[in-house]
């Protein structure tokens, strides 16, 4: 099975920092920032980008649909 590498882009201003993506990432890629966005929310970012496999689980569960996922099969 080809290994895949992935990356996500979070729409920072729309992220509400709910952490649902964080707990649903199979490879523990995501964390919330310490800083807050314009709405006062700590937003999601890739803390361990290299672990991302582009499975889109995070995007699929994100209630606000603010995650875009990219994937490259290696």
């Amino acid at each position, binding site marked *: 099975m080809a290994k895949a590498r992935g990356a996500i882009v979070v729409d920072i201003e729309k992220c509400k*920092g709910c952490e649902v993506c964080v*707990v649903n990432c199979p490879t523990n890629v995501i964390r919330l920032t310490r800083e807050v966005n314009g709405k006062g929310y700590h937003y999601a970012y890739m803390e361990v980008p290299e672990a991302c496999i582009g499975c889109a689980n995070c995007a699929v569960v994100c*209630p606000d649909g603010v995650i875009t996922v990219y994937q490259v099969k290696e």
Partner: protein
Amino acid sequence: MNLKDIIKPENLVYSKTPLLTDNVMSYCPGCSHGTAHRIIMEVIEEMGIQSETIGVAPVGCSVLAYDFMNIDMAQAAHGRAPAVATGIKRCWPEKYVFTYQGDGDLAAIGTAETIHACNRGENIMIVFINNGIYGMTGGQMAPTTLPGMKSSTSPFGRDVATMGNPIKMTDLVAQLPGTYYVTRQAVHKPVNVRRTKKAIRIALENQKLNKGLSFIEIVSSCNSGWKMTPVQANIWMEENMIPFYPLGDLKVDGELVKK
């Protein structure tokens, strides 16, 4: 490999459907409504039926669904979405019509409209967001609130002896000859989101084939109403709501699923 090399248009595997508007959703962080909205819009996009779809959202947190779903919509009075959808569908039998209703809406004030639209077998899809509470009005007890569960109108927990039992509307409507597809799903985990999305697809395909009513319950969380963090709420839901409202198909192709 560098992130820049991955984040390229040709590598895109998931992005928000354009059938969701760019408005920031008015829901609380982590609310199931957002996910449910998105997958409905994804299916409509995938089926290419935006111009043939009419949605009906009654009062509840999702009353503003029309701000987020980029389709024609009618906002309905509390509990009356199935009647409004009936009015639409009867006049436009070739369009796709769905309602999107909360548990207070569908299972309390709207009980008669729900039962009768199901019983008549209106050829529509009903999406039923069961978060066990009245989210919009500030967390009051819903007909689906679990025994012992606290809410602003059951501050000491739901006492079934005086407040009645939580009602399983999905089980009830599955009994009616007019329903063709009845299922109970969730959207708190990727696998559930994918299953629910598939259910929505089945429902709309059924509608195309004039099969009758499809009813999709989505067991949901309302972290604000439950006074938990979103993640806690999802765990609580899994541990408490789902055992009471078990996931799975109740009726497929007009036949009750044997347990």
